[in-house]
C-alpha cells in the first residue's frame, strides 16, 4: 500500500489570491517537488523573488533524494514484519513509522522556516517589518495577499492510512492475545 506514495503527492501547499483564479500551489512528492499545475513552480519562484525568498530548486533539495530510501526501508521492514506475524515486531515498525513521520514533519517545518525567514533582505523588493513568510506545516495562514494552505496530499493520506491499518492490526492482536488470558483466569 505504501508503494502508492510514489504515485501521489505526500503534501500540498496551495496559495490563494485574487490574481490566481485558476489556482496556484506546490506538491511535495516523495522524490520531487512540483507545481500543482504546469508552470506553478516558476510562478511561485517569481512571486517569491519580491520578498527576497530563495529560489525553490527541487534538484537541490537533499531530502528528496533521501526520502525514497527511507520509504523503501519502511516498506521492506513492513513486509518483513507481516511475514513474521510477530506483534513485537509490529510495535517496532509502528514506532519507526512514527519516528520517520515526525522527522519528516520537523524537517518540513525547518525547510519552511529556512525559506520563510532566511530572506535576502538586500534584494527584497517588498519588506514588511517583522514579517516572515513561513508556510504552515498543516492548516492555513495569511501571507501578504496570499492565503497559504498546507495539507497532506493523496500520498500523505495513503501513508496515514497505512499507519492506521498497522495500528489497528496491533490493537486487534493485543485484544486477541488478551482474550485467551482472561479465559485461562
Amino acid at each position, binding site marked *: 500500500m505504501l508503494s502508492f506514495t510514489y504515485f501521489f503527492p505526500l503534501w500540498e501547499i496551495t496559495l490563494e489570491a485574487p490574481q490566481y483564479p485558476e489556482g496556484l500551489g506546490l506538491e511535495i512528492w516523495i522524490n520531487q517537488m512540483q507545481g500543482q499545475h504546469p*508552470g506553478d513552480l*516558476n*510562478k511561485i519562484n*517569481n512571486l517569491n523573488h519580491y520578498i527576497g525568498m530563495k529560489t525553490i530548486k527541487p534538484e537541490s533539495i537533499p531530502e528528496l533524494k533521501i526520502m525514497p530510501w527511507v520509504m523503501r526501508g519502511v516498506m521492506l521492514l513492513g513486509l518483513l514484519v507481516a511475514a513474521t506475524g510477530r506483534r513485537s515486531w509490529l510495535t517496532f515498525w509502528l514506532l519507526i513509522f512514527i519516528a520517520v513521520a515526525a522527522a519528516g514533519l520537523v524537517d518540513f517545518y525547518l525547510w519552511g522556516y529556512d525559506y520563510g525567514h532566511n530572506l535576502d533582505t538586500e534584494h527584497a*523588493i517588498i519588506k514588511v517589518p517583522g514579517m516572515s513568510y513561513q508556510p504552515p506545516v498543516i492548516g492555513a495562514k495569511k501571507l501578504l495577499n496570499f492565503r497559504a494552505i498546507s495539507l497532506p496530499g493523496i500520498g500523505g493520506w495513503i501513508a496515514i492510512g497505512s499507519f492506521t491499518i498497522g495500528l489497528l492490526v496491533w490493537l486487534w492482536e493485543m485484544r486477541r492475545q488478551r482474550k485467551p488470558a482472561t479465559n485461562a483466569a
Partner: protein
Amino acid sequence: MNAYRSIIITSSALLLLMLATFVGCSKKQEVGGVGDAPAKVYVAPGTYDEFYAFMSGGFSGQVSVYGLPSGRLFRVIPVFGQDPEKAYGYSEETKPLLNTTHGFIPWDDAHHPQLSVTDGQTDGRWLFINGNNTPRIARIDLTTFETVETIEIPNSGGNHGSPYLTPNTEYVVASTRFSVPIPQKDVPISSYKENFKGTISYIKVDSATGRMNLAFQILVPGINYDLSRAGKGPSYGWSFFSSYNSEQANTQLEVNASQNDKDFIAAVNWKLAEELVAQGKGEQWPASYYHNYMDAADVGKSEVMSGVRVLNAKEHPGLVYYLPTPKSPHGCDVDPSGEYIVAGGKLAALIPVHSFSKLQRAIANKDFDGEYDGIPILKYESVIAGEVKEPGLGPLHTEFDGLGYGYTSMFLSSEIVKWKIGTWEVVDRIPTYYSIGHLMIPGGDTKQPYGKYVVALNKITKDRYLPTGPELTQSAQLIDITGDKMKLLLDFPTIGEPHYAQACPATLIKDKSKRWYPIEENHNPYAIKAEGDARVERDGKTVHVYMSTIRTHFAPDNIEGVKVGDKVYFHVTNLEQDWDVPHGFSVMGSTNSELLILPGQTRTILWEPKQAGVIPFYCTDFCSALHQEMQGWIRVSS
C-alpha cells in the same frame, strides 16, 4: 435598343433605392431591445458568453472576436494588417506573413471568416479568411488566436468567393472576383471577351496541421465569381459559386453587367477535379506566389512557390455546369440537408432555390439550354426547386436555423426575411438598421446549425448611435430566432466593415485555449532560456541584444557599445510561464512599434539609432506593481 433597356434598368434601380430610403425612414422611429431583451443578452460578471463570434474587419484587414449574446469585444486578431498593439507585421518574426509577389503588403480587404469543419460541423480548430484585394488566404490558430499562415493565390484578379470550405476542411476555395488576362499580359481592356479569364482555386488543407497547399486551379470563363458554398450530404463533392457579369462588359458595369435577365451559379464537381489531377490531367502552368507560415520555432518563413496545375473547365466534360439564376446573384448558400442551393439575386424580386437532385437528373438527361463559353448551361426549369416570391428588395445571403427555415438578408429594404424550405413561403420579417449585407446564424452554414440567434451585419448606422462626425460605426444586431417571431435583442458596434461572421459554441474553443508557450519548447534561434544567458553580441554593424523579461526587469538593462548607423536587433524573450502575463518593449524614437511578447515567446524588433546619446527603453504592458521600474537605457556613441 441597349440604351433603351439601360434607361429602364437604371430608373427601376433608382426607384428601388428611393423605395428603400422610404422604407428606411418609416422604420426610423422604431426602437428594438425592449421587453425581456436585456435579460436575454445579459451575461453576468464572471460568467461566460455562450458563443464565440468571429467577425471580419472588412477593409481593416482584421478579424474581431465577440461574445454572443453580450456583444462584448474580446480581441482583434490582426491578419492582413500591421497591428502596433501586438507588433504583428512589425516584429521580425511576423513580418514574413505579409510578403507577396508584389512586395510587403500590410493591408487587405478581409471578407469571409470560415471556421474549420469536420463532417460538416464546426470543429473549433482554425479560422480561415480571405484577402480580397491582393488575393490571399490566411489561417488563424484558435488555440492562440494568432495568424499562423498566409498563402497568395496566383492567376487571380481578386479573391472574393473565398475561403469557403469543403465539409471536412479538405479544401479551401478561392475564386476570381475580377477576371483578368490569365496569365497576365498587355492587351486592350476592350478585348475582355477574348482575353479575360477567371480561376477557381482549390487549396488542400493538411488535416493534422492545417497547413495549406495550392492543389489545383480550374480555368473558367471570364466573368465575376462572387460567393461560394460547398455541397454536403447528397451534394458532397460539389461546390457552388455565384457569378455576375455574364455580359462580359468591361465598362459601366453598373448598367452593362445588369443587362441579362439571368446570370449563373457555377456548379463545380471538385471530386472529379481531384480525380483528373490524380490522373495527371490538366497542364502545369508557370506561376509565382508566396506561401508564408510560422515555423516550428514560431518564426515566420516565406517560401516562393512556382507553378500550378490548371484544369481548363471546357476541356473536361462534367467538371463545371452553369445554373441560370436571375439578376446578378450575390449569395450562394446550401441548406443543412445539402439538397437546396439558394441564390440571392441582388436585383431580383424573388429568391431562386435550386435542387441538387434535379441538377443531377438534368445532367443525366442532358437538359441543356446551350452553353456559355464552352460550359453547359442547364435549363432553369429543370433545376429550380422553387422561388421565394416577394421576399423584399435586394436579397443577398441566406443562413439556416436547422428547423426548416431560411433567413435571407435584404439589402435594399433593410430587413431579414424568414421563409420555409419546401413551401417557399415567407413566414416572418424584421427590420435591420440599416443596409444589411451578410447575416449569420451560429453554425448556419453547417449540417446542424446551432440556431438561437441571427446576427445582422449592417453597413450603415445613421441615427442608431451617438454621432462621431461623418463616419459612423458599422454594426451588428443580435436577433432572437427561438420563437415564431424574430425579436431584436441588441445592437453593437464593429471593427471596420462587419462583412461576414461565423460563430460556434464557446465550449468548442475555450478549453483548448493556450495559456502560455512552454519555455522549453521555445526554439526561436534568438531565444534565451534563463536570465543568465542574456547578452549583447556585435556582428559587423549589426548588434544582437539577447534580452530577457520577467516581472519586473529586463536583462540586460544597461547596454553600451552601440554606434550611430548600427542595426540593433532586440531579441526579447518573456521568461514568464504564467497565463495573461505578456510584457511589452519599446525604445524611444523607434520608427517601428512596440513588441508584445507573450509568456514563453521570443519576439524581435529592429532599431536603428540615428544620433548619439542615452536612450531609454521600457515595458509597455502594465505587468505588475513594479512595472514602472521595468526600464533600461541604451547608450549610443557616434
